[in-house]
């Protein structure tokens, strides 16, 4: 998967590239609109991560140009300007999603994958992790072919965990993913624990291995090399 990151903050670029490249994604960077236009016309990308406030203009102007391309890449706006108008305008101009800064890198990865599934694969992709199978289209998950009875949140959690497999996921990142802005007002993340507990239980009941491990009490990790 080839990603173009249009962003002017060098540290931000390093963070994102480090996280995404561990996932096997190829990341290219444009630090301003001019470079971005150049790259878009010269190469093909699966996904564009677009910051709006760039040194030589507003990232929104790029959306109009992207529309004219034959194979339009996915566009995920990453902006520090968390304004509703920008969001609506961006989505209206053809962006696929809007992620306000600051975000969890795990969330960024999850969003990129989700857009990719939706636009390029038509949502038919089946995510497989060892004996666990996840069908996005009908929100079904199964272990050894045996269907799991998951709630919507548990399903989202499972997808989020598999997408960010072998990563340490902070409780707050998980909470943010599941409840969005509501977590701003929730001081403790017991709710995350509840969902993790239920998901674990359901996978175990279906005969699946426990891939979830607690990391020093600060978060969770989902991976095959766990106990």
């Amino acid at each position: 998967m080839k990603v173009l990151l249009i962003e002017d903050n060098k540290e931000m670029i390093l963070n994102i590239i480090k996280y995404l490249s561990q996932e096997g994604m190829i990341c290219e960077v444009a630090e301003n609109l001019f470079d971005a236009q150049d790259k878009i016309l010269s190469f093909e990308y699966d996904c564009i991560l677009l910051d709006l406030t760039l040194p030589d203009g507003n990232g929104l102007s790029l959306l109009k140009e992207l529309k004219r391309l034959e194979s339009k890449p996915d566009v995920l706006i990453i902006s520090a300007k968390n304004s509703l108008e920008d969001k609506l305008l961006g989505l209206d101009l053809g962006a696929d999603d809007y992620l306000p800064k600051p975000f969890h890198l795990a969330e960024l990865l999850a969003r990129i994958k989700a857009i990719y599934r939706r636009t390029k694969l038509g949502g038919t992709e089946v995510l497989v992790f060892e004996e666990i199978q996840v069908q996005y289209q009908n929100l079904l998950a199964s272990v050894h072919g045996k269907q799991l009875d998951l709630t919507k949140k548990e399903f989202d959690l499972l997808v989020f965990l598999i997408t960010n497999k072998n990563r340490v996921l902070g409780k707050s990142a998980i909470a943010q993913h599941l409840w969005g802005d509501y977590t701003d007002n929730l001081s403790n993340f017991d709710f995350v624990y509840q969902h993790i507990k239920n998901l674990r239980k359901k996978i175990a009941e279906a005969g699946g291995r426990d891939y979830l491990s607690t990391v020093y009490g600060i978060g969770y990790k989902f991976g095959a090399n766990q106990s």
Partner: protein
Amino acid sequence: MRLLNILTTVYLLITLTAVITGGYFIYRKLVSEIDFELGMELERQIEAYAQRISNGLSPSALENDRLQITELPYDLEEEALVLSDTIAYHDPMNREEKQLKASKSYKIGDKHYRISYYNLVVEAEDITETVVYTMVLVFLIQIIFVVFFFRSISNRVLRPFQNTLKKIKQFDFGANEPLVFEETKISEFDQLNGFLEKMTQKLLIDYRQIKEFSENISHEIQTPTAVVGGKLENLLNSEITEDQAVLIYAAYQNNEKIHRIVKSLGLLAKLQNAEFDTSSKIDLSEILEKSIELISELVILSELKFNADIRPEVFVNMHPSVAEIMFSNLLSNAVKHNFKGGWIKVSLSPHQLLVSNSGKSLTKKTDELKGRFKKESSNSDSVGLGLAIVNQICKTYHFQFDYSVSKDDIHTITIDF
């Protein structure tokens, strides 16, 4: 009361006072003038009679019902003219009438006569009637003039003022245009307008600065916190010991807290600047139902009993996102400051929202908790801006916000629209 009406009323009251005082003096003057003229007339008459007596006519032959001639001892001094009111028989009217009597004595030859002559005076009632009639007429004419001319002229004079008022009413920070007035030729109004022009220019500059600040602060602080967050997230995924992990995570969480504070302060600033459009009516019931749906899972996970009584189609002038924020803050507070097996009750009627829940007893006053960064527990993850935001929302929309805790630790929040 309109300025013009006040001016008219005051003007009419002053006129009325002037007319009454004027009337009184006119009355006084009339009476004295009439008396004076009458006295002169009587004196001339007396003098004529005295002349006739000196011409040889016998006084008794002259006497009639208006004339009285008495003979006085000769050694008395001649009396000067004396005017006095008296009641005397008036023949033509055949009754006693108030008359004016003038008397003067003359020494004619060797005789000394006092000649008194009577005449009817104009009656006080008649004068009063005339004066009142005239004054009422004057006053009526005044009223007509005031209504037709004074008011229309005043209206024209006050028009620049009315225009100024209209412009102030239409002034909108969002439009970003300072007030501009035309010259009025009335120096006070020009001063007022000039002052308003300068003031709005200053206000708009300040407003723009605050707005830019609240916009910039999100960008300027969010970007570094995003960078820090990303670094820490990457760090968490590297080879680390447990000690390091705990340190990193603590930094990570506090970084998130900075983000939440900045976000909340930005929202507060936006609310204070009234940057949310409030022109449209929204269905609060619908938004509340949605908010409850979002929180319902947390309610179940927290093992709370939830009871909602929502009247459908409660319409209020509000920005939908603001309503969402208000509900989300209130509901998550009710979940957060509750205990296992507790309860939450929400009711919405056309004029009131009520959220009550079981909870812990407070050590702080409820009014204090409405302030910024005031929180009951020293729970480090809580920012302490939730109620401040609700409070500011209520202020912005002129809602009545009340928070009370009963003796049995039932927390109740009411918002009257």
